[in-house]
């Protein structure tokens, strides 16, 4: 007699297509084949996950057409099933999967459109956080400020693409002009995606601002963010950039520089 763990492992592998349902000897046919009975569950699993991915990636689905999307995500679900029980967290690796998926490799901009849709989904569901009171940053020494790490709002993410993915996204929204043509050679974008109130918004940032904010989002301290910004554009003004960041309500926390022990 199989243990519960073995029974569930066999069913799980059969659902993902790693084994034929017929090999699941623990299942009764009851007038059907065991494989057909497992098929009822498999259909439900795949339709739930496909619907979830379609809800997260509606523009990708529209760009490749829903039938191809269903085919691609069927492969994706088998290769990368969910790692957690919350459907809104499923699909983060779909952009990388699409980039490596031979049937759509010619759509070079598609993975970046998918990254934008993931950033939007992430922003919509991110944890809530209150903006930092700017007065808490007063009185820092220049050295202390340089080593300050600013925590950005959990909904914020930054996306750079050599394709105009923001225009592709807008042209594929419900109600968009169906005859609009996006020039894919119109140049790349550096986008900031975040939640504002109940809405998700994104906008294009100048090179230095993008470098500064994305360095902070990656966990870099202020000094590193300033270096990144100066490398990206000589027009960078720290005081103004920092004020804009605080005014945007994007800073939700700071970790005070650690005092150096010894030395």
């Amino acid at each position, binding site marked *: 007699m199989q243990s519960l763990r073995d029974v569930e492992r066999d069913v799980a592998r059969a659902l993902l297509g790693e084994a034929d349902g017929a090999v699941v000897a623990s299942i009764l046919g009851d007038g059907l084949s065991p494989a057909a009975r497992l098929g009822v569950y498999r259909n439900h699993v795949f339709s739930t996950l496909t619907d979830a991915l379609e809800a997260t990636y509606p523009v990708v689905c529209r760009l490749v057409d829903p039938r191809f999307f269903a085919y691609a995500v069927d492969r994706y679900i088998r290769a990368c099933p969910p790692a957690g*029980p919350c459907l809104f967290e499923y699909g983060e690796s779909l952009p990388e999967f699409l980039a490596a998926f031979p049937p759509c490799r010619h759509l070079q901009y598609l993975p970046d459109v998918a990254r934008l849709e993931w950033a939007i989904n992430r922003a919509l569901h991110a944890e809530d956080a209150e903006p930092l009171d700017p007065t808490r940053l007063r009185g820092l020494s220049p050295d202390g400020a340089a080593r300050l790490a600013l925590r950005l709002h959990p909904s914020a993410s930054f996306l750079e693409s050599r394709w105009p993915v923001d225009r592709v996204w807008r042209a594929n929204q419900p109600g968009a002009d169906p005859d609009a043509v996006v020039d894919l050679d119109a140049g790349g974008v550096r986008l900031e995606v975040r939640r504002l109130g109940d809405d998700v918004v994104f906008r294009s940032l100048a090179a230095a601002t993008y470098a500064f904010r994305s360095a902070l989002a990656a966990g870099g301290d202020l000094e590193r963010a300033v270096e990144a910004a100066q490398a990206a554009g000589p027009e960078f003004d720290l005081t103004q950039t920092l004020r804009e960041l605080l005014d945007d309500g994007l800073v939700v926390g700071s970790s005070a520089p650690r005092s150096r022990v010894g030395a």
Partner: protein
Amino acid sequence: MTEAEGRVRTSAGIGLRSPHVAEVMATRPAVAFLEVHAENYMGGGPALAALDRLRHDYPLSLHGVGLSLGGADALDARHLTRFKRLVDRVEPELVSEHLAWSVAEGAYFNHLLPLPYDEASLDVVCSRVVRVQEALGRAILLENPSRYLRFAHSPIPEPEFLGELARRTGCGLLLDVNNVYVSCRNFDEDPEAYLDALGVSGIGEIHLAGHAENEADGRRILIDDHGSRVADPVWRLYARALERFGPVPTLVEWDTNLPELAVLLDEAAKARHLLEAAGRRERDAVTA
């Protein structure tokens, strides 16, 4: 008993799905309670904000679909922590989960998968229910699943398995009448006999939903798709359940082909009429 519990106890609620949230917020329909899937509210943003507001006007029922209480893999501690945080935040009147599993070898299926019913699996599910109830500091309700297959080795009938689970852990039961109907019809069993095999106490909530009828290899199979009105035989089985168990807070669920909110409210009103009739019968029996 609080007023909210009183409302849950005697009337009918609806499963709240995201396309209906704005309308429910704007029109505040007269339903006894709202039930949501816990896993849809484990982030932040507008979804959670709406739930924070609605819980002041409606008793809430939090329905988990991802704890995998019938799973042999270790309980997902991070998920249980998030579940508890949500329970603490929205203070639901009812908390429920399923007699099912949804994860194996790290892969989540986001579906309620069946397990064989024997002493070993009973021990596994009991230990999980105990752990969840200890973490949450309250009893939960456990729901009977819809079933499309049977295991060769599954010696304990489902109603008996559920009854024993309730007896050993102190959990209550969420009786999904549509699931009883679907499962029994799929295996040529008698749905009324299923109800009779359940103990008369401990049913904390009833679920109603629509199902579909499909065919596989010339054999009729009922699918619990929550995609239509409650079928007539399920309404009759529900009336039979109310005779046996008395009035129990009842929820109408709808997930696929989601209709206008008004249709869902109409289904809830039908359940409420049957509940009120059952309540009158119960009072008459007491005064007779």
